[in-house]
């Protein structure tokens, strides 16, 4: 019997190695896998590259991970926020590398990785600083920038319910990056509010099929 549910956050997170690229779901607090991030801090893996929409708020969650010195590079769309104190300080001190990616390109590059595409011509960013030195092409009278897939060793996401096959459903705008990050990582760990029995999730309503998920941890 395959059972992807796990009682232990630490055990699930133990697969992360120094130098890994880790995707972290969430947009603001919605869909942020806070307990998994805390477990990653406890785990202590270093020299990480983090792919996430933001770069942490206040001193908890992703900000705490940065503060702990575990992150070499952020790939994100919106690092600077009113309370991104930790990132701001590290960035201004030159202690963290930043790859700034327009939000739609971020989503699309993650989806491209999960879908096995080699690269995509995207309309966003053409003619801007964020497309500097990138290949461009005019197709049907419109200009596009060539962007490459964003993959990860591990994705940490938050879902609402999950079952032992790894099927997931989300809650409201907490869905955000979860479904596409799950596709783009070698190993996806989902923290869920509730683990349910196999068959309790309607097959028509499952948002992330279990094939994209390796561990489900109820928190």
């Amino acid at each position: 019997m395959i059972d992807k549910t796990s009682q232990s956050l630490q055990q699930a997170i133990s697969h992360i190695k120094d130098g890994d690229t880790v995707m972290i779901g969430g947009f603001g607090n919605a869909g942020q896998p806070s307990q998994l991030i805390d477990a990653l801090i406890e785990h202590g893996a270093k020299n990480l590259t983090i792919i996430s929409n933001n770069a942490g708020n206040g001193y908890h969650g992703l900000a705490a991970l940065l503060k702990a010195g575990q992150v070499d590079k952020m790939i994100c769309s919106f690092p600077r926020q009113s309370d991104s104190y930790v990132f701001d300080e590290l960035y201004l001190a030159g202690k963290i590398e930043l790859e700034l990616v327009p939000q739609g390109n971020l989503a699309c590059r993650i989806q491209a990785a999960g879908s096995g595409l080699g690269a995509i011509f995207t309309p966003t960013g053409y003619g801007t600083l964020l497309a500097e030195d990138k290949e461009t092409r005019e197709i049907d009278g419109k200009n596009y920038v060539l962007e490459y897939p964003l993959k990860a060793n591990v994705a940490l996401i938050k879902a609402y319910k999950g079952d032992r096959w790894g099927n997931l459903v989300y809650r409201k705008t907490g869905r955000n990056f979860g479904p596409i990050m799950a596709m783009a990582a070698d190993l996806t760990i989902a923290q869920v509010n509730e683990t349910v029995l196999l068959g309790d999730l309607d097959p028509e309503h499952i948002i992330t099929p279990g094939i994209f998920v390796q561990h489900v941890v109820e928190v």
Partner: protein
Amino acid sequence: MSFTARSQEEMAKAIAKDIPEGWYVNLGIGQPTQIANFLPTDKDFFLHSENGLLGMGPAPIEIEEDEDLINAGKQYVTLLRGGSYFHHADSFAMMRGGHIDLCVLGAYQVAENGDLANWSTGKKGAIPAVGGAMDLAVGAKKVYVMMTHQTRKGDPKIVKNLTFPVTGLKCIDRIYTEYATIDVTPDGLKVIDMVEGMTIDDLQAMTEAPIKLG
């Protein structure tokens, strides 16, 4: 004759009046968010928020605030009957695939050819952030700007050429400011509305790019 700037509320009202029923609309973070307050409630407008919802409703009462139900500005919102949730790739497909009828954005500068600058002031040492700005600029069928006519220091924001970093090229269709509504056309900037008492010369004096009555 003298003239008075319209208030932010009046600008929001003016924009709301120009949105036909049934349009799919994304209202940018900041000032444009207010436009929602002036859309007639007896008609159907479809508000999109790029973090993954369509059919966005007004802010909830405090007791009904839900951490998992926020808009792109990370404010608590509600969902109307008939609304839906989806993931980020689908959400930006709506935007970039040309399915959104209108996006209203704030701006630092708009050039006479419709170039937009609204994501970075280009200051050295500033921490950059772009979010969905570049996607919103190029994706929607129409993109309007809602902004003050000039900077606080009195510099023009409607310019011949951008001096701030580009968000998107030739992407703006219309500009609403506290003094006027201006269409960006292949023949240049055309003023389609001005506050009472204002002349085209008054407006031109505050505008770097050439304007004419539309």
